């Protein structure tokens, strides 16, 4: 496999793992932001 073809996802078995991780991270951030808004309102 050449460097150009290298597409193995690091840390996760596939890129789907990364995609889910990014989306979950966003969800967690939104929840935290919502809690901050409520806490300091």
């Amino acid at each position: 496999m050449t460097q150009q073809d290298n597409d193995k996802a690091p840390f996760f078995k596939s890129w789907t793992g990364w995609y889910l991780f990014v989306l979950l991270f966003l969800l967690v951030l939104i929840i935290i932001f919502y809690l901050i808004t409520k806490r300091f309102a």
Partner: protein
Amino acid sequence: MSQLDWIVLVVTLLAIVTYGLYKSRTTHNLDGYFLSNRSLPWGLVLLSIMGTQASAITFLSAPGQAYTDGMRFVQYYFGIPLAMVVICIFFVPIFRGLKVYTAYEFLEKRFDGKTRTLTSFLFLLQRGLSTGISVFAPSIILSSLLGWDIIWTNLFMGGLLIIYTMTGGAKAVAYTQQLQLIVVFTGMFLAGYMVVNMLPPKVGFTDALEVGGKMGKLNVITTGITEKGFNWSDQYNLLSGIIGGFFLALSYFGTDQSQVGRYLTAKSLRESRMGLLMNGIVKVPMQFLILLIGVLVFTFYQFNRAPIFFNDVQVKKIEQSAYRDSFYLVQQQYDSISALKQNAVVAYADARHNNDANLADNSLLTLKELQKNSEGLRNKVKGWLNEKIPGGDGNDTNYIFLRFVVDNLPVGLVGLLIAIIFLASWGSIAAAINSLASCSMVDFHRRFTKKKETGEDEYRLSKLYTLGWGIFCIVVAMFTYNIGNSLIEAVNILGSLFYGVILGVFLVAFFIKKISSGNVVFWAAVLAELLVLSVFVLTKAGVFKMGFLWLNPIGAFGVVAFSLLLQGILNKKETPSVD
């Protein structure tokens, strides 16, 4: 500025230019000049993507935006992680697989040359103009702060970066962005630390958040839903951030050459994807922290006297106008209210520490009432500037953070923060100029000149295009004045006028396989652009109200809908009649 500040500023700027020139050695062909020979690791790609998106106005406007409107602006970035995922799945593999220089090259392979030319032209138009604003935005602020003529700040801002961008191409852009971001983050972190440090001794970070929150500045999540239903004219809320922000980010990162050109420099598909996904992870928290600095500055000014208006140049205009005496009177009232506010906020902080809920509530009520009064006085001054004083500009959002820096931060740090304005600007402007040159060279020059050129010739011409676009952006900056809104918004509004349509063309290319006619997509794009411009004009004329972020989905879906419609008409014409 002190002598030390000047030394810090000049040394930082010269170090970046020198570093850019040092890193500018690259192969003398288009692959080397525009794509760094597709050799960069994901970390550098990430910093390049971030450095391209985050301009000086990101760092200047955002704290000011939080100061005036609270932190809800962060919702604007919620679409980015979603867009990063979609781009990694659909866009990057195709761009890399076809080994294109520009995103628009793909459209010729999918449709025809005409569609490629149209999208590339729309890109050049909006990116060229918005880069001009990106030169002007920090220049006007520096001009106000340093007392320099705007012509010189424009030339200084745009001129120095042209040296390394022209010499080193994409490689110099990426390496300097790395260094620029390190300096920018260090400076912003120090500024945030200093704000908290300058609060009264008993007032800590959580107290500052309490005050900011109770005064309505920690409104991170807003729904946009009112008693009358969803407010479509509300610029920043959860829904517009996720949907509108998603389409804007998809257009910007997926179809804007200034970004596509960054992740095409990666050494493999994996490195491109990692750079984009990491951007999806770090961008929202980063923006949150920048906005938080604005809230802390707001809290700082509850304990200290705030200027009634943060742009000194505009204040001088009032002082030289017929409103001078009225202004002094308003300022006296404002200062008296400031003193009362300081007492109320200290009483509130003390009551919180002593667990005296009643006193805390009463002090807070007083503080809110006083804040309302002082805002009323500020609005009066803004009104004079907007409506009564020729050449006046009542928007001081971009000046709030810098005014705070110059008035309050220690010697040396002020020079560093001014350097940040230059560095953050250079990062995004250099990438934009590089991408404008690549589109001009690859999408236009290469296609429309009959002369066969060698790699060395193309390299030389690419440098000339880079120089040409650099000069064009400085010229646009010279003619930009008083665009009214916060400058970060002006750039985003300009982008929203074209991005949706460009994205729509790519959506048809990726997802609607049955449409293969270039004519169909071309005319669908033209119609959708007219639709977007009409909607924008109608909202400006007050016919109806709508936030600018919605222009992105309208443009994108407009192209898709018109394409399907035109394809349907074409199919009908081609189907032989049965009778």
